[in-house]
């Protein structure tokens, strides 16, 4: 909600409102979230993100002004919602009928004859412009002004477009597939769960209840006889309608947050007053239909309970002060305050709601942190977590790498009703499919990982079957090269299985090709309880992550004979210096000695963070290395 500082000031005596910076701070730490502040139309505009529980009372300048008044303890000059309402005169020239199954429980209508629909005065255009709202005409602007000023959405119809001399407004359920053309020209198709406002005599729909008006009774430059609507529309019905039609409007946003029933009356009177002032005409009168159903009830709270929950002492005098600033009405019964919130606050219905008000206004910053007392229960060891840790440690020590993969896949036993994408419309029924995909990807980058023979990954996670959800373990192995693939894979799984069986003290099923997957839940029943969690190694201190290069890497092997007493660091230094930033890895993979000489062989992995490397790039580096090697006594490239 955009809030103009200049508009806020009108609710206070001159000079009473502190700076924008101070307001921002106070509102952020004691009431709402603040998205930012911008300058517009010569004033500061604060973007206030009102929390859902405060949306009923705070989506308006008056609501924010009221909150500022409470928090800073500065009185409002003139609170429009603290006036007595009188709907006089009563109009005989309009009638309103509400169908009981429609989404409206309370409706106030007013009729003004003889208005002149023209441009709005400058002050009004400017105030709306500051919020990014376009001026339409003086009558429509008046309704927008009241919406952003008081938080009550209202609507104006052209009375002349109703059938008959005495317009009859109706609120009923829409017919299934009923069509309505909205202001702006779009046609929408309605469902019978939605409600509409009608010209009751012709049964024509003229607006979608609580959401948006239609063109049938639109106010135009020729309009001089108007009907003003202010009503209470059901929050859930309004939200569902706005959502189904993808038509979330400033009006529907307020109704769906359950603005107070009684606000309708304040809204209609404010619109009437403003239209009479800026568009002229004469008030015919008001008519009410339905009833104000909701009324705030007294909520009991004690200082002892508030202090116990907040963890800081709040004395009764403090509570009385805060309740007064909130304009709550309270009585004292023994130690208990019976607190009734002002009508527009819809969020204070249980003691904890009052305690939240006390906490934030008193200041959460006054709560001093405390350590928890000793626990009453000795924490039990979670068997499943313990065994998961044991399996992780065993596999990690063997050189396998843990992965976490997506549960949503393109196939599985259980489908989603509302998927994000067709390749993510099922819950996985196994882990192996994902693990094999990781092996495929990993195999192509093995040298970058410092792996040249074999890569192994594992996942521990849940799968979803028609018989239920279960936690599984899946280990995958991929060997490089085509030589003896199956035998090498099988040999790797022998090691993995042996190590796991030894750690767990049980037998496991055999691998199926490149994966070994088993249910941990099924296994768990057969395993003894643990008395402590296994060791849990964590990431070393000082690790800082670097994003991986998106460019391909190049692998070159380098082998050299050197005299037996040569320090290997001497070789590495030459390679690393010439390789520079492009040399990502330098892995020694073979060493042997013969006739007073030693052979060292290295895998060199080159990759740029900026470009695809060419043979030319690498050739320059390799030549430089070889050139330096050749200059050394007794060194010979193999």
């Amino acid at each position, binding site marked *: 909600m955009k809030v103009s500082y200049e508009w806020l000031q009108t609710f206070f005596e001159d000079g009473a409102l502190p700076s924008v910076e101070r307001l921002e701070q106070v509102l952020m730490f004691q009431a709402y979230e603040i998205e930012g502040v911008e300058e517009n139309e010569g004033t500061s505009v604060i973007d206030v993100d009102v929390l859902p529980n405060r949306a009923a009372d705070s989506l308006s300048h008056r609501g924010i002004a009221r909150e500022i008044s409470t928090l800073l303890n500065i009185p409002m000059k003139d609170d429009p919602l603290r006036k007595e309402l009188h709907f006089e005169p009563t109009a005989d020239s309009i009638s309103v009928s509400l169908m009981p199954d429609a989404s409206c429980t309370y409706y106030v209508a007013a009729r003004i004859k003889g208005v002149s629909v023209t441009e709005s005065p400058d002050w009004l255009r400017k105030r709306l412009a500051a919020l990014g709202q376009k001026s339409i005409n003086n009558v429509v602007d008046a309704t927008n002004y009241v919406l952003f000023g008081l938080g009550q959405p209202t609507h104006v119809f052209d009375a002349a477009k109703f059938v008959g001399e005495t317009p009859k407004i109706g609120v009923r359920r829409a017919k299934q597939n009923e069509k309505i053309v909205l202001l702006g020209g779009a046609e929408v198709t309605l469902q019978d769960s939605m409600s509409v406002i009608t010209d009751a005599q012709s049964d024509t729909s003229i607006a979608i209840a609580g959401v948006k008006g239609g063109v049938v009774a639109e106010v135009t430059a020729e309009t001089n006889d108007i009907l003003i609507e202010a009503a209470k529309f059901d929050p859930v019905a309004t*939200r569902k309608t706005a959502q189904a039609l993808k038509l979330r409007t400033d009006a529907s946003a307020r109704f769906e947050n359950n603005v107070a029933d009684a606000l309708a009356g304040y809204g209609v009177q404010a619109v009437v007053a403003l239209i009479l002032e800026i568009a002229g005409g004469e008030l015919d009168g008001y008519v009410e239909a339905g009833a104000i159903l909701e009324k705030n009830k007294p909520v009991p709270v004690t200082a002892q309970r508030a202090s116990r929950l907040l963890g800081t002492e709040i004395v009764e005098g403090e509570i009385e002060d805060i309740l007064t600033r909130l304009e709550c009405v309270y009585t004292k019964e023994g130690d208990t305050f019976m607190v009734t919130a002002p009508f527009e606050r819809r969020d204070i219905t249980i003691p904890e709601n009052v305690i939240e008000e006390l906490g934030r206004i008193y200041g*959460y910053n006054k709560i001093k942190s405390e*350590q928890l007392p000793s626990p009453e229960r000795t924490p039990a060891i979670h068997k499943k977590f313990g065994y998961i840790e044991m399996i992780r440690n065993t596999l990690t020590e063997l050189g396998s790498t843990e992965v976490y993969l997506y549960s949503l896949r393109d196939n599985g036993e259980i489908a989603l009703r509302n998927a994000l994408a067709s390749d993510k419309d099922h819950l996985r029924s196994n882990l192996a499919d994902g693990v094999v995909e990781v092996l495929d990807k990993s195999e192509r980058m093995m040298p970058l990982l410092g792996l040249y023979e074999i890569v192994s990954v594992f996942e521990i996670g849940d799968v979803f079957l028609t018989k239920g959800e279960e936690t599984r373990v899946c280990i995958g192995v991929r060997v490089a090269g085509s030589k003896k693939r199956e035998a090498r894979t099988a040999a790797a799984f022998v090691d993995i299985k042996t190590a796991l069986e030894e750690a767990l003290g049980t037998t496991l099923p055999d691998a199926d090709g490149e994966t070994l997957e088993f249910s941990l839940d099924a296994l768990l029943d057969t395993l003894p309880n643990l008395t402590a969690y296994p060791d849990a190694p964590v990431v070393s201190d000082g690790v800082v992550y670097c994003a991986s290069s998106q460019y391909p890497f190049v692998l070159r092997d380098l082998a050299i004979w050197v005299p037996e007493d040569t320090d290997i660091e001497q070789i590495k230094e030459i390679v690393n210096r010439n390789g520079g930033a492009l040399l990502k890895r330098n892995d020694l993979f073979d060493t042997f000695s013969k006739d007073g000489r030693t052979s060292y062989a290295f895998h060199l992995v080159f990759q740029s963070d900026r470009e695809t490397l060419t043979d030319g790039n690498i050739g320059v580096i390799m030549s430089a290395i070889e050139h330096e090697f050749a200059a050394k006594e007794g060194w010979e490239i193999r």
Partner: protein
Amino acid sequence: MTLEKTTEYVHPLTSAIREIVSIFSEMGFEVATGPELETEHYNFDALNVAKDHPARDMQDTFWVDDTHVLRTHDTSVTAHKLEEHKGAMRFVSCGKAYRNEATDMTHEAQFFQVDAFAVGKDITMAHLKGTLETFFTKFLGGSVEVRFRPGFFPFVEPGVEVDMRLTDENVPERLRNKWIEILGAGMLHPNVLRAGGIDPEEYQGWAFGSGIERLCMLKWGIDDVRIFHSGDLRFIRQFPVTK
């Protein structure tokens, strides 16, 4: 050994979960887990998320049928534990949660959440503050300040947004002296306690929940949440373990 021996690496999520469990275990918290495919009851009703609450709408939640969802928060585990244990208790759970939303660098359809809660006769918001200070100090290192701002979550009242700031000189520059919005917390709503069969007049407690990926991103300077679940070994093998 047929697997190639290299340095041992640990997935940052695993490392974070281990640290979380270890820090909270020392404070008397027990590990808890629960199903990812959850009933509407434990994911919503028992947590005071009303039938007509917008969070139940299709765009936020993955539904499997009329009554089952992929849990939208790990807080469903809290609902189970309250019901199982009644009186005083402390639990920490780290698990996968799901949101039906478009993914980008800071949003994922699946993510890990840590949820912790403490219930007792006199467990207060002051204990919440103290526990979080201890947690952040141990998890991120250095001196930490914690502050509360008003927040709203259906399962707590009062509800707060928690910011923290690290102040030590040895804290990485990207974190030093900056207030960071880190998690949501509050005092368990009486309806939540009642749903677990606990009398809110007798017992009270706090709860908080935070994304584990987000904690990892802060700790290690990771900029894209999607990499955690990608299975990209170039990422995971940047995190060697200390033994």
